[in-house]
């Protein structure tokens, strides 16, 4: 039986969040979206749905599936990219085998939830991920609607939640000159660099959510498990995690009647019951394509079917 589930999430920054849109010179610029407010257009920091989807769900749930099914170290790059990054369509002609497709979806709630590009078909997932909307004055009306719990209009301005950081990359010639053999040819250019960036300050809160359309309890279990694994691995989002940035405290508002623990346990049991099938499916789906692509490339020399790109023409 399928249903539509709506799960609201509240993520509070525990460390500076450096979810960037790019750099200007040596300064990293925060990812922002343009919001229309009563006083005109404002650019407000935002967590992209793409980052949330990957970090909180696809990567942890994909890794779980790989490890649980004993696939770690045994799958090719195509399969790994499918499980962890959504894969890419690589065959020029799509094949639709409805029975096989239905079995895959039944055996792998992970695919049913988050979808992905198989070599010969794109599978749409049931998951719709919201952007992380900063709880600030500019977003007041939106966060009330997203949370379904209302919000006061006199929140602080978005700029009150924006801070900055600055780090220094040092130069070995200056700090540890004794380790360098000066006789060896080298340039005299200094490695010293000051680099800086903007961040959303700790304490700021984002509201976001997950909608599962026509989904079943196994997909909800997969989603909850992914978020749990992500949280237990540190719960980071955005860049500079190696320097402690991007740690979030994420809490969920589950629909009534949902037992999170039961759903997670049921999903894990389901995965364990299908270990052999998933392993065989992975081998069947990705290894044969890789062999075929290699053979075709060797034969034709010019057309790389595997990447769906033309090479060596002219």
């Amino acid at each position, binding site marked *: 039986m399928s249903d539509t589930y709506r799960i609201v999430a509240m993520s509070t920054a525990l460390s500076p969040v450096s979810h960037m849109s790019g750099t200007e010179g040596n300064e990293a610029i925060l990812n922002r979206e343009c919001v229309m407010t009563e006083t005109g257009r404002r650019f407000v920091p935002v967590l992209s749905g793409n980052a949330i989807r990957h970090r909180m769900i696809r990567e942890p749930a994909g890794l779980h599936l790989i490890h649980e099914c004993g696939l770690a170290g045994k799958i090719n790059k195509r399969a790994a990219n499918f499980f962890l990054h959504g894969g890419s369509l690589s065959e020029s002609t799509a094949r639709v085998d409805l029975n096989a497709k239905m079995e895959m979806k039944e055996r792998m709630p992970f695919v049913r939830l988050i979808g992905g590009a198989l070599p010969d078909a794109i599978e749409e997932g049931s998951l719709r991920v919201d952007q992380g909307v900063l709880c600030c004055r500019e977003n007041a009306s939106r966060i009330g609607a997203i949370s379904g*719990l209302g919000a006061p*209009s006199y929140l602080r301005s978005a700029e009150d939640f924006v801070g900055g950081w600055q780090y220094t990359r040092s130069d070995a010639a200056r700090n540890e000159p004794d380790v360098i053999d000066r006789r060896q040819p080298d340039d005299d250019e200094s490695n010293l660099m000051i680099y800086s960036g903007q961040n959303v300050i700790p304490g700021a809160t984002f509201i976001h959510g997950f909608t599962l359309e026509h989904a079943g309890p196994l997909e909800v279990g997969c989603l909850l498990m992914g978020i749990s694994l992500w949280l237990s691995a540190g719960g980071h989002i955005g860049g500079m995690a190696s320097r402690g940035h991007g740690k979030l405290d994420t809490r969920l*508002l*589950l629909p009534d009647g949902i037992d999170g*623990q039961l759903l997670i346990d049921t999903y894990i049991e389901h995965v364990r019951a299908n270990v052999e099938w998933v392993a065989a499916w992975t081998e069947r789906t990705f290894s044969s394509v890789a062999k075929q692509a290699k053979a075709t490339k060797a034969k034709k020399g010019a057309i790389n079917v595997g990447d769906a790109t033309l090479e060596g023409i002219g």
Partner: protein
Amino acid sequence: MSIQVITPPPSFDANAWRLQLAGLTDPDYSTGKDDNRSKEEHKQWAINLCLACCELFGEDLDRMTLWDRIPSAMATASVKCGDGDIDQFVSLCLDHIKADSAKAARNDRVVALLMGASDKPITWRQGLVRYIVQHSFAIVAYGRRDWEVVKNDRKNGGEA
């Protein structure tokens, strides 16, 4: 592979949501209007602080460094006074420019600065410190402009 027990993510409810947002509200804007009145007051206060620092700039210091010392005074004081303690903020600034304490006590601008901030709510005072951090270059530019006016007035025998 070791057996890992995966527990659900922590949850929140409507009450927790309201408490969370209560900590993110801005009493300055409780009417819902973005009227910029506080920002104007912060700007004028910061400019007046620049003028006070010009008047009390330590005699041991090179006056050529006036507009280096004043922004560095405000920058270092801001870091320590994010809680909105304006008395401490002014003291740290004057200390940084090596002001004479007796002259500072007699300076009308300093007294006006302290009195002007003391009856303001804590959010206004914290906002002032935040404003100074975020507008340091503009404050110095306005401060220098107004200091030139004060000097000219004094040259022409007027009261500044």
